[in-house]
């Protein structure tokens, strides 16, 4: 079977700095693939190029046989490749539920004019959005905070809200940039379970960037390792844990962190 998403020779240069240098790898359908590497290795940059938030300098990203790099982010999102953000990125003065409702707008059946005049289809849409929002929040264990204003949420819930918003768009590939940042051990383990059920129950292919090594080793089917913009390794968690290059270039100094 051909891969769902292919990163092909992708390079990104910021002036003299090469943030990504000729990166290539494939992502299979229904896979959880992590991208790891030290700070500044170019992980977020890679995700931004996959979601077309920034153009590639050269190379391309292919999704279902179609190039999705160097387009507009909303077009890539409409095709089903959706990213979350490393920084806290929310709709501040919306409630959790409102955010998840608005994120479903791509599923709207009625036209904008239909909404303006309040057509039957538009009303049905809204009912469906609200119902799905409640289901999704229930699934994510966020029902209790569904009427909280986003700006009032603690850090852990903000991360979860970011994922909820991403999931509400009904993506086929979800790119999570540091989804466990700012979470304690229990919250992280809970989120690991959730991400896994997102894949298992909703058939979403997940790519994630994370610094939390135990979590990464636990959740990933495969791992891609970046260092100074270069891909230095790719493989299953156990392959990565025993990869000479990885240990030397990156993990060697943080043995404890990776739990080897």
């Amino acid at each position, binding site marked *: 079977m051909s891969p769902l998403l292919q990163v092909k020779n992708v390079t990104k240069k910021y002036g003299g700095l090469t943030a990504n240098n000729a990166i290539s790898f494939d992502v299979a359908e229904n896979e959880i693939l992590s991208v790891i590497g030290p700070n500044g290795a170019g992980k977020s940059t890679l995700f931004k190029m996959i979601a077309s938030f920034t153009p590639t300098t050269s190379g391309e990203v292919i999704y279902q046989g179609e190039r999705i790099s160097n387009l507009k982010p909303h077009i890539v*999102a409409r095709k089903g490749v959706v990213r979350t953000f490393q920084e806290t990125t929310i709709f501040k003065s919306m409630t959790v539920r409102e955010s998840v409702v608005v994120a479903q707008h791509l599923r709207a059946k009625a036209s904008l004019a239909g909404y303006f005049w309040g057509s039957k289809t538009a009303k049905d849409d809204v009912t469906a959005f609200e119902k799905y929002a409640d289901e999704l929040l229930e699934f994510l264990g966020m029902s209790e905070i569904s009427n909280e204003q986003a700006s009032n949420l603690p850090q852990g819930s903000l991360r979860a809200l970011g994922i909820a918003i991403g999931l509400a768009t009904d993506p086929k590939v979800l790119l999570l940039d540091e989804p466990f940042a700012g979470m304690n051990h229990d919250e992280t383990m809970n989120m690991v379970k959730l991400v896994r059920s997102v894949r298992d129950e909703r058939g979403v292919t997940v790519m994630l960037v994370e610094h939390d090594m135990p979590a990464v080793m636990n959740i990933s089917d495969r791992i891609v390792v970046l260092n100074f913009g270069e891909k230095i390794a790719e493989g299953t968690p156990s392959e990565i844990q025993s990869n000479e290059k990885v240990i030397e270039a990156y993990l060697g100094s943080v043995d404890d962190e990776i739990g080897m």
Partner: protein
Amino acid sequence: MLGFTSKQLVGVGIFLFVIFIGVPLIINATGRWDFYFTLTSVALLAIASAGVWLTFYIGRINIGQGAFALIGAYVSAILVVKAGWSFWISLPVAGLFAAVVAILIGLPILRLRGVYFAMITLVLTQVVTLTALALPITNGAKGISNIPLPSGISLLGIPILPDFAGMENTKLAFYFTACIIMVLTYAALYRLVNSRLGHLCRSMQQNEELASSIGVNIAYIRIVIFAISSFFGGLGGAMFGSIAQSVYPSSFQVADSVNFMLNCFLGGLGYVFGPMLGTLVLYFGWDLLFEFGKYQMLIYSTILIIIIRFLPNGLLSIRFDKGGDK
């Protein structure tokens, strides 16, 4: 009904009663006929301000509505005087023309945010004024005067819109027309804000990056909103020209553009009906301070600063502080 709560319906009912029945009764009783002109002006300025409020709603500070009001006024005047069109047809065309200009200008400038967008819009009014001075069709500094009053329209022999020239009380007719257009404008604005487009605007206002990550075509929505905003500007301007029966390059100036923006700030950016209240208060506030002569501007500005300092969410926030209603 129509997505309104009963409390809101009562409010709307009272409002309509006041402007269409209460005000004429009071003016009749007191004989202050000049008030019709004042209130008509307020209604028309409120229409243009509604447009400015809408650009605020996508997170852009718009100090250029005077430009679009001026464009609307000229387009209507030219169509009526030079092409012999009915004013009633020229009115929507003036709005549409302003909207098309907004699309052309908006394409390059709507990428800018914050103070950069504001600065460019601030220049627009001056650009349109200078264009009106330079073009032959706008008659330069002489402007277009002697615009005839709106003529009637009838369809299949049934009069739909009256002939203003044949009326005894054109002031009342203009007042009613302005109020009807204002009510329609705000009804449309209310629907828009509470529909999907409004929710997408809100998402953009709060976080453009996140909005595009969920598939919102932010560039497109910005243009659509700016076009609608300028349509309201053109509409208000065209009505003004018709009432004044003349248009000059100075009919709308940078100061007017600033006032449209202040109307929104004062009324409250979070409330659809904010700009209407803001326009009323600012217009009358300025007039009431007339007695202070050369200190008028000083006192006016001071009061404005104090209001904006202590009521950053506008006058309507006093009433809606707890309800959080729109």
